[in-house]
């Protein structure tokens, strides 16, 4: 069985599955049970300054998007950082780390954007024996209104400044947690690196309103008739998170900067995808909140099996494997020609491919009197929509035309050589060069 032991910015854990800073990691009771269940590490629910803790709303804190069978697809929260006193959290962290020395315990921190605040609290927290810090520059609701969380994460200069303060205040690894509520994830990531951060973790939650109550005309979750945007997470946000992780992983300025991948990780497969795109480990929250701590058993067994099948002996063999294959559009091979192929033995004649292609794409699928669907090669641009809407696995696939084969749509044989937009005759800059 593959060795899942993980080392992330020097922090060791039995596996790369950490629980993200969130309600599941709010107290000793939960964290002990999470470690017993098999989680490799936790990022403790975000700690704030000494003194009276924040208060949370007492109405609903979560909203959700469901599938038809109430499968939870997306979750939104308006909960703030820990609402328990700092000293209580620190005592508990100390006890937990003492009893679980081989598991990762990282402290998430959010204090006002002042040098003294950060430099005062980090040494206090370090006394718990924690393995590192995660700077919460991500939370988009509540705390952001007070100049913290994503209010910091949306200003690269602040990120750099606070990261630098923290690195001056501690020898422990500092991870900067990034908000996705920005135009370009590279700016905050580069700022974190400039500030000396050891790693970034992403994504935090996305500004969201999950739904509107059409009787009370209030956003959900509704607290006494009003609602506010929350942070969106869960399976629905994974594609957004994957892209942001990949952008940082392949950007020359940030390439090599360790990444802790977060955003909709629900199964081992999600975790493996994040890792292939450059995440050294992953953090999980919504899946645990939906199904409980036990899901980590599937993550461990699934990733182990996959790595065994691929001949990978450590997670390092997987991390970043897909990064070289993420590129800009302009580098894609325009001479690569495919055509949709419908397997008539698997086809159940639902006609969804036909409706999609006829109504919304390229009119490249025909329907016969007896509901046999065929691809018109002279119209098919290989958009893949038919593949995506077909309800049957592998019924419609894309066949790559071999070099020299006739592309009936263009009337030209498929070229053997790679050719992208940069050299394409229709590219104005190519014409200008001539």
């Amino acid at each position, binding site marked *: 069985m593959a060795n899942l032991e993980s080392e992330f910015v020097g922090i060791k854990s039995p596996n790369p599955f950490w629980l993200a800073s969130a309600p599941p990691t709010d107290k000793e009771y939960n964290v002990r049970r999470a470690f017993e269940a098999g989680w490799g590490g936790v990022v403790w629910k975000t700690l704030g300054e000494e003194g009276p803790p924040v208060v949370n709303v007492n109405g609903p804190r979560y909203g959700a998007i469901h599938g038809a*069978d109430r499968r939870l697809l997306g979750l939104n929260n308006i909960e703030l950082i820990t609402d328990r006193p700092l000293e209580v959290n620190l005592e508990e962290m100390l006890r937990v780390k003492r009893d679980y020395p081989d598991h990762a315990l990282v402290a998430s921190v959010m204090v006002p954007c002042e040098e003294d605040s950060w430099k005062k609290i980090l040494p206090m927290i370090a006394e718990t024996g924690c393995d590192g810090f995660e700077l919460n520059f991500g939370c988009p609701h509540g705390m952001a209104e007070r100049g913290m969380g994503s209010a910091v994460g949306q200003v690269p200069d602040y990120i750099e400044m606070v990261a630098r303060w923290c690195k001056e205040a501690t020898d422990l690894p500092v991870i900067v947690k990034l908000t996705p509520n920005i135009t370009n994830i590279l700016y905050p990531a580069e700022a974190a690196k400039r500030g000396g951060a050891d790693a970034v973790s992403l994504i935090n939650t996305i500004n969201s309103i999950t739904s509107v109550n059409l009787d009370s005309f209030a956003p959900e979750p509704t607290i006494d008739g009003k609602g506010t945007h929350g942070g969106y997470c869960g399976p629905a946000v994974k594609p957004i998170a994957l892209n942001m992780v990949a952008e940082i992983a392949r950007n020359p300025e940030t390439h090599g900067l360790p990444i802790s991948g977060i955003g909709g990780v629900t199964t081992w497969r999600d975790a493996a995808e994040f890792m292939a795109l450059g995440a050294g480990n992953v953090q999980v929250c919504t899946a645990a909140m939906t199904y409980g701590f036990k899901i980590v058993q599937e993550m461990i067994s699934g990733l182990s099996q996959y790595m065994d099948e691929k001949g990978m002996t450590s997670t390092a063999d997987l991390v970043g494997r897909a990064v070289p294959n993420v590129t800009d559009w302009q580098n894609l091979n325009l001479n690569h020609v495919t055509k949709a192929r419908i397997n008539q033995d698997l086809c*159940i*004649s*639902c*006609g969804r491919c*036909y409706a999609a292609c006829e109504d919304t794409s390229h009119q490249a699928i025909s329907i016969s009197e007896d*509901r046999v669907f065929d691809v018109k090669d002279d119209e098919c641009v290989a958009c893949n929509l038919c593949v995506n809407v077909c309800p049957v696995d592998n019924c419609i696939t894309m066949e790559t035309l071999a070099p020299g084969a006739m592309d009936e749509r263009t009337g030209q044989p498929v070229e053997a050589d790679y050719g992208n937009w940069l050299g394409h005759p229709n590219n104005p800059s190519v014409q200008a060069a001539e």
Partner: protein
Amino acid sequence: MTSQMTPGVVAGRLAKEVIDDNFADLHAPLDGHEAMVAADRCYFCHDAPCITACPTDIDIPLFIRQIASGTPEAAAKTILSQNILGGMCARVCPTETLCEQACVREAAEGKPVKIGELQRFATDALMDANVHPFERGSSTGKKVAVVGAGPAGLSCAHRLASKGHDVVIFDPRPKAGGLNEYGIATYKSVDNFAAREVGWLLQIGGITVETGKSLGNGITLSDLTSEFDAVFLGIGLGGVNALRCDGEDKDGVLDAVDFIADLRQASEFGTVEIGRDVVVIGGGMTAVDAAVQAKLLGALNVSLVYRRGKDRMNASDFEQDLAASKGVRIITNASPRGVIGNGSVREIEFEYTDDDLAPTGETFRLAADQVFKAIGQTLVGDDLPDIDRGKITVTETGRTSVAGVWAGGDCASGGEDLTVTAVAEGRDAAEDIHAALSA
């Protein structure tokens, strides 16, 4: 103490609670969440095969999508605009040979979308709210007579009323509804649904129901054609085929349709008498309805005997499986040769036949306190329009050989003898009548 073992024909073979439970809804209605899950399985096919398979052409993918998006009332209107008896059809349609057989998920995985149950979910929602979503058009001053208050007649009458015509429905039975009221197994239409549906249908207005009247009994076709601007015949098949074997006249040899009707009208199922040993002869829905209900009443042995092979039975696989699950023994390739008994039936003798109905010479006897005949019904009536092979000859839109007279449902040629087919024929005839009256 009466029990299943008690000889003869008696009531109360099972405890009242057991019988009541036996006659509860065959399919419990889907609850809201079940409906969401079932609706989510619909692929919203292009030019969906289920629509083609429905004799009334209900836009099934659309109504399922309307359920999935939380508007079952809108779904019901989609259904009812094509099939005004969509509530009953949701209960009695052999969906496994119609829409659900055509469902692409049947092809894909052998598990079609639960179209029938979803249709019931939608129509129940609307009817439970006592909403009638159709309005009567402004009066045309035209009068149409509808003979027969069954599915064809009701469907025709509703469509005509919606066009603004005045409709009078004549029916010999005390209640409107036809086979919906008198001819369907009790567990398929519980809580007086057929009567409630008729009451709901009549909310359109402009329809008068006159019971106790049929052709030759208070009315004649020639009177109707002179008094009304048009006539629609939806008179069903009033006669029952005979066994044509010795001893058929003995006590205890009964028509299955009467047994089914009596059971439907019984206020207490426990008061209905049933034999210890019951034999049902026939292979269609009526035979299954009778056999299953005999078993539900507590008959110890119920045999359903059909003269051809299993694959030729008109009862669908679902119905056959239902019968088997209730303990009905299905015997095929056997024809009745004689009813034996001194006054009342005691036994019935059958002869095995091959697939071409040729006798094999081998016989067997079944003990029988009751024999229910369910070998088909026949058209009865004098002075009807032209008849061919036992049915009134009609065009695609229900026109008969007599000018101004349309016909549909089981009494008319074309289509299967199904509630849903009758609804379609009544509706289409109404459209043609309306066109003729508007010309």
